[in-house]
């Protein structure tokens, strides 16, 4: 099995503004969002980052997607370093998170073509891919409707499709089912499994245990910016339910810190 992704000692701190300090009722000036985080993911597997709110999941994925730079440490995706070769990394990954929005004025057709151009996808390939993906997600009927007029679920599907116009080998999804109804969530999880069967490597973050149990091959549990344990789903569960194991681990970790 090929290790397609290596994360080594990723660390990220944020300087908190006076406004943020007040808002979060804290005196600390610097927040360590991700603290010396390491893990690897293999080709053709779904890796889950599981953690409570504020654990640092989104921050980790944003570093992998080269939107923000780590303070220290590095991640190598299919041979490209996020620190040294961010532009190469961007060509290899598809990234989806709720903070990435589509311009509401445009139609799915336009956006698909626009992002294909930015990714350097040849027109011929683009057309085939668009037809296949739009049909797969039922976007074809809405292909000429402005994004502003689409339902939340349809918007999410368009965002998903647009994030993979270049057929990337590594797909990074932050909270893939957040805010979706069960039907749309199902479409998304089914698609992720389909991608895995095509040999894609997928990293998802979530705080939903059932999603991890259903989807993931390997899991990393992240609390307070640290990777507290990492392994196959079975290794982590040790025969019990993931939820029970998580609370044990959480108690151990937070208890240690106090």
């Amino acid at each position, binding site marked *: 099995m090929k290790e397609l992704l290596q994360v080594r000692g990723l660390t990220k701190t944020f300087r908190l*503004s006076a406004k*943020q300090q007040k808002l979060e009722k804290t005196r600390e000036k610097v927040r360590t969002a991700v603290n010396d985080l390491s893990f690897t993911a293999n080709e053709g597997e779904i890796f889950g980052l599981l953690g409570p709110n504020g654990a640092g999941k989104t921050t980790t994925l944003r570093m992998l*997607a*080269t*939107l*923000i*730079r780590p303070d220290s440490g590095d991640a190598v995706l299919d041979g490209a370093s996020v620190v040294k070769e961010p*532009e*190469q990394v*961007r*060509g290899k*990954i598809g*990234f989806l998170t709720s*903070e*990435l*929005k*589509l*311009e*509401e*004025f*445009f139609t799915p057709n*336009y956006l698909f073509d*626009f*992002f294909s*151009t*930015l*990714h*350097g996808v040849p027109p011929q390939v683009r057309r085939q891919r668009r037809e296949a993906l739009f049909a797969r997600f039922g976007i074809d009927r809405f292909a000429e409707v402005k994004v502003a007029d689409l339902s939340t679920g349809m918007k999410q599907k368009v965002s998903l499709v*647009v994030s993979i116009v270049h057929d990337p080998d590594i797909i990074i999804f932050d909270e893939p089912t957040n805010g979706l109804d069960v039907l749309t969530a199902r479409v998304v999880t089914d698609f992720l499994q389909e991608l895995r069967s095509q040999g894609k490597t997928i990293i998802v973050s979530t705080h939903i245990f059932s999603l991890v149990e259903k989807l993931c091959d390997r899991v990393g549990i992240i609390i307070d910016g640290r990777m507290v344990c990492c392994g196959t789903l079975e290794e982590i569960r040790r025969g019990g339910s993931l939820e029970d194991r998580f609370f044990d681990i959480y108690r151990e970790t937070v208890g240690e810190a106090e």
Partner: protein
Amino acid sequence: MKSNGIIAIMRKELARFFGDKRMVVSILLPGLLIYVMYSFMGQAMGSLYGVEEDYVPTVQVVNLPASVSALVEASGGMALVETDASAVEEAKAAVAEQGLDLLAVFPADFDQAVAAYDPAGGGAAPDVEIYYNAASTASQSTYMLLTGLLDAYEAQLANKFDINAGGGVYDLASEKDTAGTYFASLMPLLLMIFLYSGCVAVAPESIAGEKERGTIATMLITPIRRGDIAVGKILALAVVALLSGASSAVGTVLALPKLVGAASDELSANIYGVQDYLLLAAVILSTVLLLVTLISILSTFAKTVKEAQTYVMPLMILVMVLGVTAMFGGGAKTELWYYLIPLYNSVQCMVGVFSFSTVTAGVAAALAANAVYTVLGVFLLTRMFNSEKIVFSR
């Protein structure tokens, strides 16, 4: 791949603006509004100070002297009606109610009294009383006409010397120069404001707006270079801003003669040749590129469109102040270093074109300087797009 990115961004920005009818209207409307407003103002001012051409005002005169009668007859333009001294109060009331245009009361034997009066003697001069109504345009203008005639008559009585009594042309400025001076004092300010408004109408929306709505991050995770985003956006924004500025400028040039009213024959933009317009177009283009870049940089610091509009306020004041400097005439500056000061150099170039005093080396210096500033600005913008602190500031 490289230019592909720039073109893709440009096309997207232009599609955004021209695909939206509301945007197109908001870009082109100012020009139409300016034309309608200025024309209307010109008309309103015209009717305020002018009286209908063929209207002959009526003046009631008490003790009409022969000399004045002859004067008025010679000049024409008003009808004199002799009135008895007893009707003065009645006539005053008529003037007050705008039923009568003017009432002139001369002393009895005005002509003799004038002839006999010796200014050196110190006694009171014969006094003419003219009652008028400033609220009535006709009354006011008739008052001016009659007092003008009487003043001229008085001057003629005591004539010691003349100024410009011959019928020749004494103002040696050509019509071209007069109009040029006028345009040169006004147009730079107007143009700068129009260009600025055009840029502000689009740049904050395109840059701070994309930040605010989270759509810029979606572009930043593609392999496109940040520099391409900056250049593509600036080029597209400049096109839109130019259109908006051009619409306003055309509206103004068409409406100016109407605003100025009577002088309209002299105030035609026809005095400028193709070369002047080409020069002006080059200056405008370089100014818009610089302005769009500056406003884009300021907008990139902002988290929201509203915030961006606050950030660009000082720039607007600066642009207006620089535009006003064009009013303190004297033609374009000849010292080259003035043409290196951004924005001020645009004003100077415009003054030069409009007043036919273009300093060619100055314009060349200004265009080159602006190009350098713009490139530096694009470079800075690229750096800013690369900075997570600026793009993802919260």
